[in-house]
């Protein structure tokens, strides 16, 4: 992200090569496409934009996208913390393999992930067949969307938390216990507070990744409007119907949503640095 902070260096430095290259690269890669999208959707005029942006089908798609992504990121906030804790604090055979496995959602093409999840969680899949008799359908419902989002956003919390946990002195915990704190109090008052910024950063990163997910969700969801249709798929459907205006409007809303999430991440990271420098 660009930060228009006053530079402490002399004015001439502002036009140094690294600065020009950075600005040029970011302009071409990030800023221009974003502006083009917004400009195109705004060319409709505000009232029409608002009307398309707030269609019931679009609202439902935002709801599915953002709320499910939030839930998935939240679940990974807890589970990722547990996994990072186990990977750093426990020694067990195969730890390195499990550690490497955490990155699988990064490495796997998302369509492959969607296919694998759909196979396991469909009514006849290994896991899905256990839930089907209970009347719980996983694949091709919003639950499936949630699972796909959990899968692809899993590594973020683990990877942001691991280095912080590794740097944490275990003596601090012993010190707290010698002062009379029970294990629960040690966790709440000594371990957790310094971990909150990296956990929140991981959650926010996972959230924005989940909001943007397309490939795996499209395979595990039925993509029925008002049920499990996510906004990125809606954009694609609009394009297929040659409804460019509709696609750009929904796209713009998605863009603004992601931008808001990224701004939150930036704040969290600043908070984390401020915290870590203490």
């Amino acid at each position, binding site marked *: 992200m660009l930060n228009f902070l006053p530079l402490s260096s002399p004015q001439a430095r502002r036009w140094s090569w690294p600065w020009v290259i950075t600005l040029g690269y970011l302009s071409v890669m990030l800023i221009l496409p974003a502006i083009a999208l917004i400009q195109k959707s705004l060319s409709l005029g505000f009232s029409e934009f608002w009307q398309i942006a707030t269609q019931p089908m679009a609202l439902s798609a935002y709801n599915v996208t953002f709320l499910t992504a939030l839930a998935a990121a939240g679940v990974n906030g807890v589970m990722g913390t547990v996994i990072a804790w186990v990977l750093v604090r426990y020694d067990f055979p195969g730890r390195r393999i499990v550690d490497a496995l955490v990155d699988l959602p990064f490495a796997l093409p998302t369509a492959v992930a969607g296919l694998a999840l759909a196979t396991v969680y469909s009514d006849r899949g290994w896991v899905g067949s256990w839930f089907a008799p209970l009347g719980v359908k996983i694949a091709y419902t919003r639950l499936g969307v949630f699972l796909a989002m959990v899968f692809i956003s899993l590594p973020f919390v683990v990877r942001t938390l691991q280095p912080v946990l590794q740097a944490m*002195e275990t003596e*601090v915990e*012993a010190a707290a216990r010698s002062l009379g*704190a029970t294990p629960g109090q040690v966790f709440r008052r000594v371990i957790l*507070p310094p971990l909150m910024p990296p956990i929140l950063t991981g959650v926010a990163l996972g959230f924005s990744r989940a909001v943007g997910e397309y490939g795996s969700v499209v395979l595990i969801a039925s993509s029925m409007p008002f049920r499990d249709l996510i906004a990125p798929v809606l954009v694609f459907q609009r394009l297929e119907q040659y409804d460019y205006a509709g696609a750009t409007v929904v796209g713009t809303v998605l863009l603004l949503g992601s931008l808001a999430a990224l701004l939150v991440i930036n704040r969290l990271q600043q908070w984390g640095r401020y915290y870590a420098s203490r």
Partner: protein
Amino acid sequence: MSIIVENISKQFGQFQALDRVSLTIPDGKLVALLGPSGSGKSTLLRAIAGLEPPDQGRIWINDQDMTHLNVEQRQIGFVFQHYALFKHLTVRQNIAFGLEIRKINRPDIRQRVNELLDLIQLAGLGDRYPIQLSGGQRQRVALARALAVQPQVLLLDEPFGALDAQVRKDLRRWLRNLHHEVNVTSVFVTHDQEEAMEVADEIVVMNEGKIEQIGSPQTIYDYPATPFVMKFVGEVNVIPSFLHQPQGLPHDIFVRPHGVKLQTQVTDTSIPAKIIQIIHRGRDIYLELSLLDRIPFMAQMNRDEWQALTMPADQWVQVELLQPITFPQASASPHRLPADSVTAA
């Protein structure tokens, strides 16, 4: 509050860290556990604290059996080598931590924290974070945090180990004075014999998981119980037994560098030595010698003695052992030898 350690053993894999150690620390004393790394001193301290459960034996603090109590139930104060301060809390919040856990009301906590800030001479820095303090200041905060809960005993694991030489010296003196003021039974671990001598009332010398000797700094230095103590505490020369075995003394002879006299005339008891190097260490002169041109030997004397000595042209002097010590069968008390029992082979 007294500490009684009864027959404590601890093994880490194949390594015997503590081997049936028993120890009594009387109320109000400041005691040093002194030994090289791996001697078991830290393990013993952690066992007393409840941070390292022993394999066998019992621990009593203030006549209460603590063996099976957790660290948080033992009412001890523990100070770590690397401070272990809570980085996300201010100095004030760090010191208040134990008091908040005990649910003491806020005005009382405030007052106690203020008292402790005065005690550690950091009254103006209460709102700083640990990272904004120097090493010496951090360790004082760690001490205040441990003292805040009014522990029965104060345990310090190499408390000055991470500090640089000058700060370490200041803090040693400060700890001594603090102990006089607070008078809580304190045990600290160190591998630095000078530190142990300067700070402690009593020194417990440890080696290979066992206690070699317990005594005041003076006793430990002047009457070492074992060859290990003799070598570990202060500088010492060892004259191997083969040098004088024909005369019927099958033991190595130990002598401090200042326990010798150099002269030019040959006597019945003097040993010839060659001067290798002369080292000026302030007001003392150290001579690196080679006894019989074979055994490295250090002699120490003050400036006046050095100037009184007329240096022979051939660099050979006669060494007279004034305070030689032997340890027959490593018995509990060292035997002082009359000076004339040592002869050169």
